[in-house]
């Protein structure tokens, strides 16, 4: 059954015809060409597909495209400010928190969700928050450092802005 779904993706209104069974991640990757969001498993565990829906981290492989009707979706492609990396992206780079890069978009979207709710997370809180994001390359060590550094940079940026 074909349905038309309308939503806002990375600040732009989009409309697409999808099947009921089309997943949000398929809409993003295949219809909209936003291939920064990845699929790493079939069981909603690995987190490579995490995007923000209405400002919250969501596994886009576990949401039907039709369920995103009217919602606002933000993907990794819209995190940097033009060519300038977001402080969290910069922290990932500076702390070598990525290797193959496949889990990275989901990690960053999850990290931003964490920091939104907990601006100064401890190591333990970061590790627990990443329960739904797998990385096979880094052993998480540098990801934890990066999220800490990214959170600090975001707090600094907020202070500077105020």
């Amino acid at each position, binding site marked *: 059954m074909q349905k038309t779904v309308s939503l806002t993706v990375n600040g732009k209104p989009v409309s697409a015809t999808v099947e009921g069974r089309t997943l949000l991640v398929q809409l993003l990757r295949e219809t909209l060409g936003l291939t920064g969001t990845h699929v790493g498993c*079939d069981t909603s565990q690995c*987190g490579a597909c995490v995007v923000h829906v209405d400002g919250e*981290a*969501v596994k886009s*492989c576990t949401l*039907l495209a*039709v369920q995103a009707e009217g919602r606002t979706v933000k993907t990794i492609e819209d995190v940097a400010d033009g060519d300038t990396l977001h402080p969290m992206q910069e922290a990932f780079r500076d702390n070598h928190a990525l290797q193959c890069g496949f889990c990275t978009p989901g990690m960053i979207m*999850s990290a931003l969700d964490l920091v939104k709710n907990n601006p100064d997370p401890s190591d333990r809180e970061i590790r627990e928050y990443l329960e739904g994001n797998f990385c096979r390359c880094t052993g998480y060590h540098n990801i934890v450092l990066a999220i800490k550094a990214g959170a600090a940079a975001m707090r600094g940026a907020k202070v500077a802005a105020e």
Partner: protein
Amino acid sequence: MYEFNYHKPASLADAAKLLAGEEAKLVAGGMTLVPTLKQRLAKPSDLVDLAAIGGLKGIKEEGGGLTIGAMTRHVEVQRSADVKRVIPALAALAGMIGDPAVRNRGTIGGSVSNNDPAADYPAALVGLGATVVTTKREIGAEQFFTGMFETALGQDEIVTAIKFPKPQAAAYQKFKNPASRYAIVGVFVARTAGGVRVAVTGAGPCVFRVPAMEAALGKSFSADAIKDITVPDSGLNSDIHASAEYRAHLVNVMARRAVAACA
């Protein structure tokens, strides 16, 4: 995933009508259903999305306890100031479900209706003596959870809310499956006006109470009081992650820890 017809009704009555067909399924947060569909383990003709129906969300303090709308997400229960004040163990339990992105979508009504034998909420409902409110009736939690992935819900019956009475004290202890992070064993202990309740999830095919522990704790509410009370391992789940014998042992350990955490 097999193709299906997708519906997003605006009222419970419309939803119930759409559900009347045997092959229709409800979707709330979809955190269990969508993976199931992806693996082609279910083939619904119709998917009925509850997202557009008003009045199913929210946490209210009522009659000294909490009423939580079926479409209330785990993250909302986890972070709710009301839940933290009235039944802090329930907020803590919600924070142990799945992972943050799952908690941002998954709902209490969906979890309860699915009745996964390793899910966390059934332990809270039975442990607290909660009542499940549906479009047709109110059912006690123990009568609601009838078996593995089975509930008392009729085909066109929809969970609308859960009513939790406030306990004097309560705690949940979860021993996580290292792979799925579901409960290998989760024990919810509550001291209530009607006595102590001990509910176990993960260990068996369906959530169950441990009357021997409840009786012992009723006499003396201390971890030591149940130190020697074990559940028989016959009938418990046994898989590559934990044998029935180990699960039976963990029920005791988690129960003692939950009792200690109630203090």
